[in-house]
């Protein structure tokens, strides 16, 4: 197994970096080491963002029995044969979009606070990129190895709220301001369950370091059942809470209220156009990717292979695969669910997710305390843990949905 962990493919990215570094003159080497890492992350996730947008549009189309973008091909001067170049499944759509966004007119309202109006998209992209620093993309691939990585992640993520406020306030537009306030309320409400859903993992893994959390999930029962945290009762509950909160944190449907176009035009983005708008768009996807990456790291075993047989596949491929699955899940949810009302949104957080997440912390504590139980006691442990998840879920769920009897649709099948 250690051979696999040390295989050439596993080390390839690092080897490549070291080779590139040693090409440079000695005084530049220490900084280029970091610069290469940053550039690599930017390039990979920049492209990832680009293709996420097109994947999202295509998937949404398919989910609604449509085709999605399939036109944008390559320009005429490319050397590929026509039938490939012609459409290319619409894969070059993001580049067309980028060119469009770059060439659009950049409008700044006359009454706007120019500095803040400019700063907001910069800040939001900057901070959402910063969160990538602590995600372990592979066995050896973590940009910064921090002891308090999870804390760092949430600290960096919380800055996006400020950026949204800056965008909303500096636009001098009532819709923008209202949307910004709404976004803030939403982000603050859901930051709590988001963090609380990760706390159980911290409790059980007893570390804040993301790479150590991934290491803690690296084992298999019978070689096929991975010890990912999502496969425990508390981990599953935590993962679901994390998913819901992550949806809300990244302003995605069904929690896309701040951009509810029927109420607020385009929310805090109303007064943004062209490249600044594209930056916001980008930051949103970066945030989504980072949160998905965190979910993969914390609950889905990070770069760990799902079974022992597949251990030889390079770890970063596993990470990317899981990341893509997570994002597809988000897209799937977006293609399915309707937008919530603001009162439903806050109620969901404070009356449902937060209590469940708090109970889940206790659940994880129980799990950690009973770690040495074995034999039939394992069954007791699982049963108790599952009961701590299911019983409150049913009780709270019932009380929340009390009075909303199953609806009968008179005019629809």
């Amino acid at each position, binding site marked *: 197994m250690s051979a696999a962990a040390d295989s050439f493919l596993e080390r390839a990215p690092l080897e490549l970096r070291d080779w590139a570094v040693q090409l440079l003159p000695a005084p530049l080497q220490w900084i280029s080491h970091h610069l290469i890492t940053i550039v690599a992350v930017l390039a990979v996730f920049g492209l990832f963002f680009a293709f996420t947008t097109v994947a999202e549009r295509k998937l949404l189309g398919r989910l609604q029995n449509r085709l999605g973008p399939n036109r944008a091909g390559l320009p005429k001067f490319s050397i590929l044969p026509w039938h490939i170049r012609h459409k290319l499944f619409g894969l070059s759509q993001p580049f067309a979009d980028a060119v469009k966004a770059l060439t659009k007119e950049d409008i700044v309202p006359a009454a706007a606070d120019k500095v803040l109006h400019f700063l907001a998209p910069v800040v939001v992209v900057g901070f959402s990129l910063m969160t990538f620093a602590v995600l372990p993309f592979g066995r050896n691939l973590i940009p910064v190895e921090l*002891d*308090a990585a999870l804390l760092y992640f949430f*600290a960096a993520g*919380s800055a996006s709220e400020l950026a949204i406020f800056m965008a909303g306030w500096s636009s001098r537009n009532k819709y923008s301001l209202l949307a910004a306030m709404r976004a803030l309320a939403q982000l*603050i409400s859901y*930051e709590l369950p988001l963090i609380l859903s990760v706390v159980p993992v911290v409790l059980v893994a007893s570390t804040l370091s993301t790479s150590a959390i991934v290491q803690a999930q690296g084992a298999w029962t019978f070689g096929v059942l991975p010890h990912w945290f999502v496969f425990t009762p508390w981990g599953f509950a935590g993962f679901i809470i994390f998913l819901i909160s992550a949806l809300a944190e990244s302003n995605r449907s069904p929690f896309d209220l701040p951009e509810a176009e029927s109420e607020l035009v385009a929310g805090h983005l109303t007064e943004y156009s062209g490249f600044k708008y594209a930056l916001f768009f980008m930051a949103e996807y970066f945030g989504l990717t980072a949160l998905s990456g965190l979910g993969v790291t914390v609950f889905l075993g990070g770069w760990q292979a799902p079974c022992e047989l597949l251990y030889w596949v390079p770890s970063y491929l596993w990470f990317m695969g899981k990341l893509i699955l997570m994002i597809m899940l988000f897209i799937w949810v977006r293609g399915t669910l309707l937008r919530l009302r603001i009162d439903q949104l806050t109620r969901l957080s404070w009356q449902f997710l937060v209590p469940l997440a708090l109970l889940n912390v206790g659940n994880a504590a129980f799990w950690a305390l009973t770690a040495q139980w074995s034999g039939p006691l394992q069954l007791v442990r699982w049963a108790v843990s599952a009961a701590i998840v299911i019983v409150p879920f049913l009780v709270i769920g019932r009380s929340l949905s009390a009075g909303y009897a199953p609806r009968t649709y008179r005019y629809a099948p």
Partner: protein
Amino acid sequence: MTAALLLIAVLMLGSAAAAMLRRNLIHSALLLVASWTGVAAFYLWAGAEFVAFAQILVYAGAVSMVVLFAVLLTRQSREADLPIEPATVTRTASAFAVAASLAAVIGSAVATARFPAASAEAPAASVKQIGLELMAEHGAALLIVGIVLTVALIGATVIASNDKKRDPEDAP
């Protein structure tokens, strides 16, 4: 090292001073966020990562939000455009005098103080160590802080909620 510290200090003090002088409250608040971030940078510089991230999470993430909400909820019309009152001038002057004199006395005291030499190595404090100390030695304090936070949260909600009773005529 010292250069980095000075850079951080300039950022931190500059934005703090600007925040205290601006008439636009939102600008003040955002500048203060910058200042708090500077403080976090100082913590990072001193090797206290955990505290730095906690500082950002609490101040830039939470306190700033509360401040901004408070600013927006208590907006007064065109305050920035009002003429400066004479009382304001005297108050500012006296405040400056007091603050400057305090700065002078503390600064001189600090400048003349002698401290035992310390190691140049930053002390290593892992998160685990902090966690263990928090839970073991300072467990009681941690509990009390938890209670304080809870009480403060509930108290803030109670204070800020509209406690006016509805007029009986309003009731349908």
